[in-house]
């Protein structure tokens, strides 16, 4: 456990100056600022809507693009960036020649990518809520404060986060196996497009495709807008977690046998 904690500390220390780390923070910040500006400048078109709908208008563009493209791409990029740091400096050999268990080195990287994704989703939830209330301060006509969306927003972004675990594990495995940008990135991107389409056309087996999980989650969030209850642990999320656990274990056996040339 101690070696897992210090490996995690090291992951943070190594990546705190990288684009992967900052993109996890800047992405929600910039998107929320952009949408807030839209609300502030176009407020007259929005006055007529009740607060519940205002919140959904704020969330919809973020979660829509998030599910179909942004979340998978963010995960694909973060996974690549965190593993590529070791390939780039040829540092796998020094990591594995330290008195640390291979399991803790492997787990810390996996957990760190999960943490970065969690950080982005958490910041999205937090910044959306903060932005809504900030907009009301500037444009009191937009009465965001009359509806409390906190639970729904945290549930939605929590669910989006959980839907990405399956993709994280697959991308992580691909990056561990290949010292390459194109293979994991290209394959991940292709799978995202195909599976997103599968989910959107309502293919019944989409619930078994890890790259469909974020799209399915967004569809679920959108239906909550119409009054349906947002259940976090639906089949897609359970499958995402199962996929994450299974691929993580397979990946460990690959790492344990990995030849550091």
């Amino acid at each position, binding site marked *: 456990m101690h070696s897992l904690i*210090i*490996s995690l*500390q*090291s992951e943070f*220390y*190594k990546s705190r*100056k*990288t684009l992967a780390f900052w993109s996890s923070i800047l992405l929600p910040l910039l998107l929320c600022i952009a949408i807030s500006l839209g609300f502030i400048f176009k407020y007259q078109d929005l006055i007529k809507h009740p607060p519940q709908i205002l919140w959904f208008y704020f969330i919809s563009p973020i979660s829509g693009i998030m599910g179909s493209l942004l979340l998978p791409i963010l995960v694909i990029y973060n996974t690549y960036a965190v593993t590529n*740091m070791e390939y*780039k*400096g*040829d*540092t*796998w*050999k*020094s990591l*594995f*020649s*330290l*008195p*640390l*268990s291979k399991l803790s080195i492997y787990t810390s990287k996996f957990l760190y990518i999960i943490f970065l994704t969690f950080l982005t989703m958490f910041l999205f939830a937090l910044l959306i809520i903060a932005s809504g209330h900030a907009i009301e301060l500037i444009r009191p006509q937009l009465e965001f404060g009359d509806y409390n969306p906190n639970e729904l927003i945290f549930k939605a972004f929590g669910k989006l986060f959980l839907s990405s675990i399956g993709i994280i594990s697959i991308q992580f495995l691909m990056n561990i196996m290949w010292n390459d940008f194109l293979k994991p990135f290209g394959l991940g991107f292709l799978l995202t497009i195909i599976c997103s389409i599968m989910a959107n056309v309502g293919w019944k087996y989409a619930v078994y495709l890890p790259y469909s999980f974020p799209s399915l989650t967004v569809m679920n969030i959108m239906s909550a807008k119409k009054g349906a209850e947002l259940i976090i642990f639906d089949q897609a999320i359970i499958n995402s977690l199962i996929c994450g656990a299974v691929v993580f274990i397979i990946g460990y056996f690959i790492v344990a*046998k990995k*030849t*550091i040339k």
Partner: protein
Amino acid sequence: MSNFAIETVGLTYNFGAQTVVKDLSLQVPQGSIYGFLGPNGAGKTTTIKILLNLLQSPSDQVFIFGKEINSNRIASLKRMGALVEQPAIYAHLTGKENLVNRCILLGIKRSKCAEMLSLVGLTDAANKKAGKYSLGMKQRLGIALALISDPELLLLDEPTNGLDPNGIIEIRNLMIELTAKHGKTILVSSHLLAEIERTATHVGIINKGQLLFQGTINELHDLSKPSVKIETDNQEKAIEILSNAGAEIVQKDGQTVSVIFKTKADMGTMNTLLVQNGVTVFSIGKERKDLENLFLDITSKN
């Protein structure tokens, strides 16, 4: 308790169908500077990676301080520091941050970084991105990373690569100091005998994965026995005369013949003998093969 910091017993390692290390039995005594020599591609780096468990060896073939490496991986690595091939550094971090990161991973106080930077002469470049370091500076940083945990056993794979003459001398002195004053054991690989013959106490020579020589540096010197090189107008006759006189011929070519040197008087006798038998002696002299040639001789035999 084994007296060897490193011991391999009939170590064999294959990359697919290719055998890269064959029946290697290294014995690195504690407190020694062990020069691990061999031409490029001889299997030195592969052996070092096996010693670090980066490549998995068959069980009961590699022992670090008497303990089998596969079943004592973490305990063994705790006592080792290594620099393998080009230094493994994070280019986006500064030299100091690279060391701090290592301190985090090894649970060492961060104050150790300044000491290490000063030791390898990188104090002024501590806050410069390591990616912008010259090859020599990267090598120094790699050595600092290997030394930071104060390991009992250091594995240095061609540590002077990219260093200027001053840097080479500094590393040489550092190795001597580490063994003499601090009782460390160092295995240092090189493809140049001249580079380590001044520091090494023990030498292992490897080629094509096989250990061709292992012993103290003095035992290596002893291999280089002096000989008498004689140039005459009639080689065949000279060889016949010398052989009949009981001289041991070690080398012959079109112009010269070399026999084992015994004494100066014996050398004079050989000269007289040749002249008296009608052979004109153009030159006769004692010569000793230098270690570099000896190394080439040893490695060219397999």
